[in-house]
């Protein structure tokens, strides 16, 4: 099974995770820019984080045979903090960089006017930079938030085929399926979605425009949920090809719209990055 995890926050994960992911078949991933659990208080915190996403984290992944891409954005939660909003002015510099394959995560958290502004502005940036957009749906009032999200996308002029609406579940999938946007599902140990519910959705809606991710981050989460969903699909009678569509071909097609996937290039596995190394001596 070859796996492309379209949404995982490796900055918060360990090298053990990278090893286990490679062993499970993960060969590529996208790390969206999001909040860090601890709120940021200034623009510099964002740019240091972005630098890590395009530099250090790509290097770490490469050491474990995994191609690392990222998305860049001001996330909806922090779009409400006036100290963070000026990062919008710096985003263009980062959206121009190699390996940045979408604007994201954008969208709504509490559906405030501030979130409206940041969301609309970043959809504009997606159009300007020829990038797809990764849209996060809110934890609270999810169905209303999703409907609102789709309205914003329609107004933006960014084609729905260039948008993935993420963290969907049974109550929100229909509207997104009908809109023509891509559907993202985060498979979590307890919340959001689990493997069995995912399989049921795939049965009902098919595999087209479906993206399955682990969304693993600093919270309780499992970077192998992609593999586990693939296994659950096989168990439920899906073919190997169906699994490959959901876990590899779909994310390649979606993020391929950026023209910046780096799947053909050899995995960069220099021992050091800017002179610094994650290796602690030679493994015994």
């Amino acid at each position, binding site marked *: 099974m070859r796996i492309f995890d379209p949404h995982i926050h490796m900055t918060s994960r360990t090298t053990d995770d990278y090893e286990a992911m490679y062993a499970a078949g993960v060969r590529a991933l996208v790390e969206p820019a999001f909040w860090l659990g601890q709120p940021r208080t200034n623009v510099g915190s964002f740019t240091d984080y972005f630098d890590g996403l*395009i*530099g250090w984290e790509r290097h770490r992944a490469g050491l474990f045979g995994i191609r690392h891409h990222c998305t860049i954005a001001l996330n909806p939660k922090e779009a409400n903090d006036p100290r963070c909003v000026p990062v919008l002015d710096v985003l*263009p*510099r980062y959206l*121009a*960089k*190699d390996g940045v394959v979408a604007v994201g995560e954008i969208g709504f958290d509490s559906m405030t006017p501030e979130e409206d502004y940041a969301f609309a502005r970043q959809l504009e940036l997606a159009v300007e930079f020829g990038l797809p957009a990764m849209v996060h749906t809110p934890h609270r009032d999810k169905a209303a938030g999703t409907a609102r999200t789709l309205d914003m996308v329609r107004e933006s002029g960014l084609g729905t085929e260039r948008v993935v609406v993420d963290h969907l579940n049974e109550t929100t999938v229909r509207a997104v399926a009908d809109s023509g946007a891509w559907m993202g599902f985060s498979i979590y140990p307890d919340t959001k979605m689990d493997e069995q519910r995912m399989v049921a959705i795939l049965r009902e809606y098919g595999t087209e425009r479906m993206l399955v991710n682990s969304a693993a981050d600093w919270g309780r989460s499992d970077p192998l949920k992609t593999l586990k969903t693939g296994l659950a699909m096989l168990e439920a009678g899906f073919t190997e090809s169906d699994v490959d569509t959901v876990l590899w071909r779909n994310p390649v097609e979606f993020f391929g719209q950026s023209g*910046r996937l780096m799947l053909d290039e050899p995995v960069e596995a220099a021992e050091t990055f*800017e*002179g610094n190394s994650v290796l602690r001596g030679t493994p015994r």
Partner: protein
Amino acid sequence: MTYALGYGTNGFANHRIEDAIAVIADLGYTGIALTLDHDHLDPFAADIAARTWKLGAELDRRGLKVVVETGARYLLDPNRKHHPTLVSEDQERRIDFLVRAARIATDLGADCVSFWSGIGPAQTWPRLRDGVAELLDRTDNVLFGLEPEPGMLVETLDDALRLREELGRPDRLRITLDVGHCVAVEPLDAAECVRRAGDLLVNVQLDDMLPGVHEHLEFGDGALDLPATLAALDEIGYTGLAAVELPRHSHAAPDVARRAFIALTAARTPHPWLDDAERAVRETPAAIRTLFPAVSRNLRDATRDDEARVRLIAALADSVTNSATGSATDLGTEVRALYDYGDSAERRAVLRGLDRVGWRIQEVGAAIVKDALRTNDTTLVAAALGGFADTHLDQHSWRHGVLKCLFTGVPLAEVAGLDRRTDDELIRMVRAFADERDAAGREVPADAVDLLRSQV
């Protein structure tokens, strides 16, 4: 038809002339600028006619273009460099030499004989003028290229054109242009000088240079806009020889010539995306913020990333300083931001760009260089110690940069101006470093050993 790329044999002073020609031709050059010298076709040798014939046959066989250069240092006087010249009291020896050079040029089928005026006070101008007139009288058919040379009586293109005016615009008296000299002393940039010389251009010398400093540098180490300069040669329909002029690089001639050829080839290869990007930056300086990071995937030629980004920085410098509201402060802010928001490849390119535009933003440039020297990234450390640091980095920081190279394994060959700036304090530091390594039973880097030996 376009011009031919050549290499000056004065940059191969440690090679036999036949070997130099072979190396130059094998690298892909299609011409040589032949400096007549004691070891390279000595015009005073008894068998000069036979030697010339033999060399001409070799050039024919290889299909190489040739011009004759007359700037040898101690050919006429073993004690006084370049002496006598056309402004000297005993200019007769210089004229005699130039007449011999003309004969050799005819026998070789050379495009021209190139010459300069000499160092002298303004009142020697009439003597110079009469000397050139005599030279033209005593020769026929051969074209002469008068080369403006920093510090000489004919220092700028305007000086050369004035002398030609005063002589009644003789057809055989034309212009040799060293594009590096244009950077160093001309009020116009090299491309503009090329256009100004126009049809009078009979010989071109190629090298990089920094404003105000007459030191021949490899391409990229100075402030020359090489692509624009070469484009100007095509624009005026120049079909003669354009030869690399690096007379102080003979010690590493084959490597230097190879690097120069790569730079020249790259500069001549047009790239529509890069041309558009440059234009965009000239029109809207802020466009560089998103074009600079996007170079690599749009160019799809990793060997040209640095050069392309340096071109964008040069375009930025032009547009910021040429616009009514732009200032050096704006340039500094923009360049600093490119560095701060850059990944390591972008930062390296900013450091290389400082060699081109850093003289305008010396404080910002020095701060960037110091930041790069604090990193552990050897590509940044190496790029930090280029031409800009050589001229503008304070001695203390520079010494520590050199020491960091030894620690991190950056070859000292990357350090611009190493010989000139090495001082007792650096030697003390390197010696202490070597002693420490010795005491620990660890190897002392060969570059450290060499540097210490060079001071004995």
